């Protein structure tokens, strides 16, 4: 093991660095969106890029999400690699037509002749006290659309690695950025940020024997906290960070659940029709004979995202996760 100089960095900085490095390495990478230039994006992820690479490669577009993604399609058709920023989760919806009708299926409808290497960066999720339309968890819409990769980092290092991988991908990637983790700091070596993981690999963030928490994005730190708190109850929880929803890493997830025999899926978006249902079904299909209890889900309520003063009652927190763990017929195991 080599020791590297690590310093604290935020997820927003790591994302910015990934964009910068990708642009430096590949002249076809273009960044575009609302306020990404002079302002550096409302979350400052693109800070400094316009200065370094010029307006032709870092473009403040007119305010039109369908236009942003639609023109990105044309740019990708002509050999560029657009990385587009949607300012907030709910403001990506005007671009759904382009995403679903064109971006996701261009490779398929052209029999492989016209792949679209577009990365769509979408800040998502709640917990930041945002007003209406600033806190949606829209991943269920994206994962229901064949042809898209859907990834979401939970750590600073993954933010860098996954974004590099997304930009390098020859397929469109919806890159979901958990906005409440933008300012979370990790120690990370910005001078040697070479860890570019291929898209589609989950990672075990914490090893345990009693049950597996399967989660991603903004819920990863919550699950880690829950796992620590669970020790007091004598439960030793494993935490799997999916990192990628599409493709889904059945191998890592199944292996974990087979070891522990119990699983809870945790995410912020609504449970009904949410990603947890798909995940629970897959786990059940693959691990049925290993399961000591049904796979449970801890999700946001099935309501439009609430106003900020009430969001703490909506978001899955440590207590709700521990309650679910307790409901895994615990006594059954010695």
């Amino acid at each position, binding site marked *: 093991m080599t020791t590297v100089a690590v310093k604290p960095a935020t997820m927003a900085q790591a994302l910015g660095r990934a964009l910068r490095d990708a642009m430096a390495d590949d002249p076809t990478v273009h960044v575009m969106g*609302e*306020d990404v*230039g*002079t*302002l*550096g994006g*409302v979350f400052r992820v693109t800070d400094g890029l316009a200065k370094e690479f010029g307006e032709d490669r870092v473009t*403040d*577009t*007119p*305010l*039109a*999400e*369908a*236009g942003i993604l639609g023109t990105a399609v044309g740019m990708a058709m002509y050999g560029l690699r657009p990385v587009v920023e949607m300012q907030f989760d*709910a*403001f990506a*919806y*005007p671009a759904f037509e382009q995403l679903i009708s064109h971006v996701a299926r261009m490779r398929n409808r052209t029999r492989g002749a016209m792949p679209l290497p577009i990365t769509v960066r979408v800040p998502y999720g709640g917990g930041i*006290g*945002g*007003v*209406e*339309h*600033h806190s949606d968890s829209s991943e269920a819409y994206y994962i229901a659309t064949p042809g898209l990769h859907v990834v979401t980092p939970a750590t600073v290092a993954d933010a860098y690695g996954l974004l590099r991988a997304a930009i390098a991908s020859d397929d469109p990637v919806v890159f979901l950025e958990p906005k409440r983790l933008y300012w979370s700091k990790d120690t990370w070596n910005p001078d040697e940020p070479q860890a570019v993981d291929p898209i589609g690999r989950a990672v075990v963030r914490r090893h345990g024997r009693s049950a597996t928490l399967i989660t991603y994005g903004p819920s990863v730190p919550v699950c880690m906290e829950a796992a620590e708190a669970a020790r007091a109850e004598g439960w030793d929880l494993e935490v799997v960070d999916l990192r990628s929803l599409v493709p889904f890493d059945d191998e890592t997830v199944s292996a974990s659940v087979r070891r522990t025999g119990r699983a809870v899926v945790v995410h912020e978006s609504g*449970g*009904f029709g949410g990603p947890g249902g798909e995940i629970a079904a897959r786990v059940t299909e693959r691990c049925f004979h290993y399961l000591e209890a049904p796979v449970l889900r801890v999700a946001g*309520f*099935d*309501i*439009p995202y*609430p*106003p*900020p*003063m*009430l969001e*703490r*009652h*909506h978001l899955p927190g440590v*207590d*709700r996760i521990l309650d679910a763990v307790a409901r895994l017929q615990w006594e059954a195991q010695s």
Partner: protein
Amino acid sequence: MTVMEQRGAYRPTPPPAWQPRTDPAPLLPDALPHRVLGTEAAERVDPELLRRLYAQLVRGRRYNAQATALTKQGRLAVYPSSTGQEACEVAAALVLEERDWLFPSYRDTLAAVARGLDPVQALTLLRGDWHTGYDPHEHRIAPLCTPLATQLPHAVGLAHAARLKGDDVVALALVGDGGTSEGDFHEALNFAAVWQAPVVFLVQNNGFAISVPLAKQTAAPSLAHKAVGYGMPGRLVDGNDAAAVHEVLSAAVAHARAGGGPTLVEAVTYRMEAHTNADDDKRYRGDSEVEAWRAHDPIALLEHELTERGLLDEAGMRAAREDAEAMAADLRERMNQDPALDPMDLFAHVYAQPTTQLLEQEAQLRAELDAEARHHEGGHESEGTAR
């Protein structure tokens, strides 16, 4: 044989049956924004109207200052100030009859308040206790709309429905310069013109969409020009001249009410403060630009007109300021009380009849809250309202 070789099959111009529907000339906006204050036209304006506009501008400015202060005290999550744009906000509210509808965007709290909405109710979205703190039917104000330009088709639909029903109702929809780039803006204009819906679109061109200046938003000679392609008149007005905005909007509303169809009005104004308290405008504009606009302040313009003509004196100004101060004091006091929130409200209005899933989730939350309350029993203070 190519199409060109088929004699008569290809025409460089359409057959004579095709007629352009309108002469674009009357639809085109003037080259310069329409002004009233400081011109002869001002003399024709009812002095009472000028005084009313003045009182509302002063109130509006004070309201913006108070709301901005409330963000600093953590009482509002965010506030997009309309300081500098008060003339547009106030005129939009005052040109409408009670039966008409206003479709505001997230920056237009002031228009809603000037229309008569309780200032506290107008701020729930930005305070974060509920999305829309009022019944839209009561004042005929649609919910303050956050996704840009998406309220415009609603305004068209409502105006159309009212006309189908035989009601004499006009809808006035507000949008920013940035919002005019959205597809919804274009679709709304097209529907409005094709249906000849009684709707007026007011674009408050305040120079920026967050950090992006108008020049990066459009290459059109003006935003008002965009109307012509859809077949409706475009009007350009000085958005800091309250009398001019009122005049142009009144004419557009009257035109719509009389069955003349929609109008697009572009008011040229300036956003004097940052996009919201969360924005750093130093990154994209210089002080000198802001200062230049300060000399064209909507309140100063009207005050000058009124005092020159002896329609307003020191006492009148003081009265306007005192009225505004009283409104601000009341707003401050009521906003400094914690709103009484019931977490069970989360489930109250998702459907007319809650789904079985929601009933289960409601029971879950109630159990959690009961457990929390038991936990706090005996010495521990209850947590009170969520903040």
